[in-house]
């Protein structure tokens, strides 16, 4: 029983990382019906930029905790810029030409370019990211939790909540929701919908970069750290539904918990299988996702 509780707690923190990245997929899908398949690379790049920044700050005799907090805004701004570049180079033309598939190849290609770039700057070997919180696990009731695992859950929820509040309360957020609902009609309201799409890409990469610096202290940091995370988060986005924020969280938690359980009770060799089986099940039984609304494609 204790082991089960322990596994679930670990699964939750892994799952929330998936949830944040999946949330990023949803952001661009809502406004433009396109996805950034370079999300994993955006995550790795964010983590690496964060690593360089935090090491620089620690070198300035700032403690690890404060260095981490100071590093966050820099990484978030970097993430936004990176996302805007992806939209500008890879997606804008495809949307303008109403291309059904151009953006898929373009975002994958940009992801590969970013990954190569990262390998050349930071090397191919995984690097250690300084942990801003004590690495010693806390004993809470029957389970042991790393402080960073708690930070991941809190940080992930805070980010999603912040975006939700922005969308609901500010006029710019409402313009984003309007663009998602009906792009032409939003244009008639005076909303520059191309800019909204650029913004959603920026926000999407910001989410990935943020996820990157959240997981970096508990894993290893490197150019290839994002590939598997990006793919699994994509599965989460499909499982939860591409149009539902709560779907990303529930999907992420399901996948995170099932993975840790499989890793322990079956074999770590099969850790990646249940997520993919789940993905296949959802696609065959409820293709719009657990929380998604069925959409009818007009032709």
């Amino acid at each position, binding site marked *: 029983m204790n082991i089960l509780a322990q596994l679930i707690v670990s699964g939750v923190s892994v799952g929330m990382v998936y949830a944040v990245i999946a949330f990023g997929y949803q952001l661009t899908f809502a406004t433009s019906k396109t996805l950034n398949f370079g999300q994993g690379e955006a995550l790795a790049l964010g983590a690496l930029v964060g690593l360089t920044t935090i090491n620089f700050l620690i070198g300035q005799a700032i403690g690890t905790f404060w260095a981490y907090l100071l590093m966050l805004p820099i990484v978030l701004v970097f993430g936004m810029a990176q996302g805007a570049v992806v939209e500008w180079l890879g997606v804008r033309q495809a949307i303008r030409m109403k291309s059904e598939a151009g953006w898929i190849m373009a975002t994958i290609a940009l992801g590969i370019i970013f990954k190569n770039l990262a390998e050349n700057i930071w090397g191919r070997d995984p690097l250690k990211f300084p942990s801003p919180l004590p690495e010693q696990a806390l004993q809470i009731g029957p389970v042991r939790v790393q402080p960073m695992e708690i930070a991941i859950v809190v940080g992930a929820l805070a980010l999603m909540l912040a975006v939700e509040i922005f969308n609901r309360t500010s*006029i*710019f957020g409402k313009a984003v*929701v309007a663009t998602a*609902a009906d792009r*032409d009609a939003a*244009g*008639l*309201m*005076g909303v*520059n919908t191309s800019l909204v799409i650029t913004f959603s890409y920026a926000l999407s990469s910001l989410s990935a970069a943020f996820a990157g610096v959240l997981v970096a202290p508990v894993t290893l940091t490197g150019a290839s750290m994002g590939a598997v995370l990006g793919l699994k988060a994509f599965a989460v986005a499909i499982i939860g539904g591409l149009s539902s924020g709560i779907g990303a969280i529930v999907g992420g938690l399901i996948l995170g918990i099932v993975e840790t359980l499989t890793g322990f009770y079956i074999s770590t060799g099969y850790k990646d299988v249940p997520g993919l089986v789940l993905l296949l099940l959802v696609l065959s039984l409820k293709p719009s996702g657990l929380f998604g609304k069925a959409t009818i494609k007009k032709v």
Partner: protein
Amino acid sequence: MLKVENLVAGYGKVQVLHGISLEVEKGRLVTLIGSNGAGKTTTLRALSGMIKPQSGSIKLGGVEIAGQPSYRITRRGLAHSPENRRVFPTLPVRDNLLLGAFPRLTGARPKGDVKRDLDRMFQMFPRLAERRDQLAGTLSGGEQQMLAMARALMLDPEVLLLDEPSMGLAPRLVEDVFATVARLKEAKVTMLLVEQFAAAALAVADTAYVLENGVVSVSGPAEKLRDDPAVQAAYLGAAH
């Protein structure tokens, strides 16, 4: 206020409008009537930038706007209540109205008193006031039409384009819509009204243009067109 010359527009390779000229003077109500497929909606879509005109000139307050994206045209003061209403179903009524004032709230147009205008809309359309926190997607067709018109008015526009506000509504609600149009006319709102109910549109409008296969076939003062035997035969037969 709005002057259109030789407007040519269409969809892809299909040309729908073959050189349309019309003018809407400040404070006037102009109506554009014609049968299905004549190009009425296409005209409005070209005016508000939803489609790019192939050639021709559109001047709003003396400034050329042809070919600009719709958000720029809206920021210049042209409001368009589009065909099929196109309210934002996932947003509450109140947010739909605020989005109508987006250029005012973001500094692209003089702000004025948005709050007061919002209250004015709720006075004008009491049904919307009752449903202000309800999602627009849950409103009835008539209520959505009211919302689409109110949303466009929230721009405090120089010119208001209304595309078939009576479409798909029960006869009693059609009367409501035309009563609203008449009230806006009294308030000196400059309007271009596209309608299938030609008789009702001609009864309320100052000037009318009849569109036939993408060209203006007849135009003139509305009361004159009402008495024109050709117009009566073609467009007013069913209504009389």
